[in-house]
């Protein structure tokens, strides 16, 4: 073992994660004190104790669980559409080289475009309902899935393709038995990105058009001037978003254990 691999002696007795959490708690405590002693107006920032206190109320009275299911349902619908059309689109573009050459930069440009800003347009087309939300999530999140699918298929190691050819596989067999499985890890990265974009846009649009599940909850509470409730709802949405993100990460790691 080289000396370079050895660690230097250092503070090993305080795990950093604990420090992070502690810092957060200290910050909350300071906020609480500042507000209670009127250094910060409680009409602008409610004291953390009040926010935490309103969690129970919000969860029960505002039917947070059913709202969560609604948002989840929208995400899943968008997610399924995303996966099907995104992968299909990517595969199509990979198979038809000319199509890829013509359209790939367009798709990349769409990835950089603020698609979600077209939500008023979608409202006109679909009405102020769940379909606007789902479609927005779908369109905003489609480009990364397509792009990653193309990438995954393009990066199949040549040798694997040659193995298939050496066994005289038909193009269809070649696709299903070799190229698609080999591309799956990258495709999954694309789907993960797509799902995250979908969630972000879905919750955002729910907030903006004041319809739907969790996003709408925040809007509602804000318009009712329920300060503590609004903060609580935002915390809740953050929590859901973080858990969603973590779950996707775990799933991805499970799918590609060797990397």
């Amino acid at each position: 073992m080289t000396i370079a691999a050895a660690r230097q002696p250092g503070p090993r007795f305080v795990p950093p994660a604990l420090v992070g959490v502690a810092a957060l708690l200290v910050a909350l405590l300071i906020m609480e004190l500042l507000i209670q002693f009127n250094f910060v107006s409680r009409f602008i920032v409610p004291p953390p104790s009040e926010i935490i206190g309103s969690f129970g109320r919000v969860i029960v009275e505002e039917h947070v669980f059913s709202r969560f299911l609604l948002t989840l349902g929208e995400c899943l619908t968008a997610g399924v559409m995303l996966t099907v059309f995104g992968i299909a689109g990517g595969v199509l573009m990979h198979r038809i080289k000319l199509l890829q050459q013509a359209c790939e930069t367009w798709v990349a440009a769409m990835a950089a475009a603020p698609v979600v800003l077209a939500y008023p347009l979608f409202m006109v087309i679909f009405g102020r309902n769940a379909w606007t939300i789902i479609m927005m999530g779908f369109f905003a999140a489609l480009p990364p899935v397509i792009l990653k699918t193309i990438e995954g298929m393009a990066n199949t190691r040549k040798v694997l393709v040659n193995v298939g050819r050496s066994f005289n596989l038909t193009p269809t067999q070649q696709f299903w038995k070799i190229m698609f499985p080999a591309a799956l890890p990258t495709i999954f990265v694309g789907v993960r990105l797509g799902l995250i974009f979908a969630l972000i846009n879905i919750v955002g649009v729910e907030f903006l058009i004041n319809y739907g599940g969790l996003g709408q909850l925040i809007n509602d509470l804000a318009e009712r001037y329920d300060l503590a409730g609004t903060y609580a709802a935002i915390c809740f949405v953050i929590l859901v978003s973080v858990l969603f993100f973590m779950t996707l990460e775990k799933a991805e790691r499970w799918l590609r254990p060797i990397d």
Partner: protein
Amino acid sequence: MPSNASTNDAILVADDIVVRFETPEGPITAVDNVSLKVQPGEFLSVIGPSGCGKSTLFNVIGGLLGEHQGVVTVAGETISGPHKSIGMVFQEESTFPWRTVTDNVGFPLELVGMPKAQRIERARHFIKMVGLDGFENRYPGELSGGMRQRVSLARTLASEPKILLMDEPFAALDEQTRLLLGDKVLQIQQHLKQTTLLITHNITEAVQMSDRILVMTYRPGKVKRIVDINLPRPRTSEIVGSEAFGRYVAQIWSDLREEASRGMQDEEKHVLEHPGTAS
């Protein structure tokens, strides 16, 4: 140069350096009571097998490794961090890819606030010294590995250090480039009468360039032997091919071989005992 000169004459003194590290397998002693003295204008090489702690020693003397026992003094002053009289040349590629050759070499001068015109002139002087005139406005990406090491060398020389400290600067280069660069460095050192401390694992290089060679043991690194190289300068290819030269090399190799094979056994043992880990 006599090796038993009094400490008062020596420009660099390392006294009883001990360096220990914490590793997942427990503490290891990288450097164990190493002392050395370097006289002004002297070329001292430190040679040892991989894992003998010579790079650690390099970092201690260069002031980049604070956690050690023992004291390093430069012209009487104890160091507590990189000292202005010590210039370091690293083993890895260390030129700044976003700066031209001139801007690279002028870097230390920029740090101390030298005015631009003066900086450029000084940089040009050292660029010429390492034989890279004509390449002032190129970027390191356009140069070969050997040329880049020359830029690193010029950069360190531009800060006009009293002591030049080099850690296997030619290790990444092919043999022929290494020999040519070695010649160049020797030429510059003799011309500037630059005190130089070279860390290396290459015996021929050490014997060719040095006044004295310090041979280290395998970990924990101690001083095994100090060899005076009483060969005339300049060290022409005749001298390199001479019998005396060969005897020095053989002598040092017999010391090193023992240490090197201890090192190899240790490494093999480690791999066997820790399957699945990277070393």
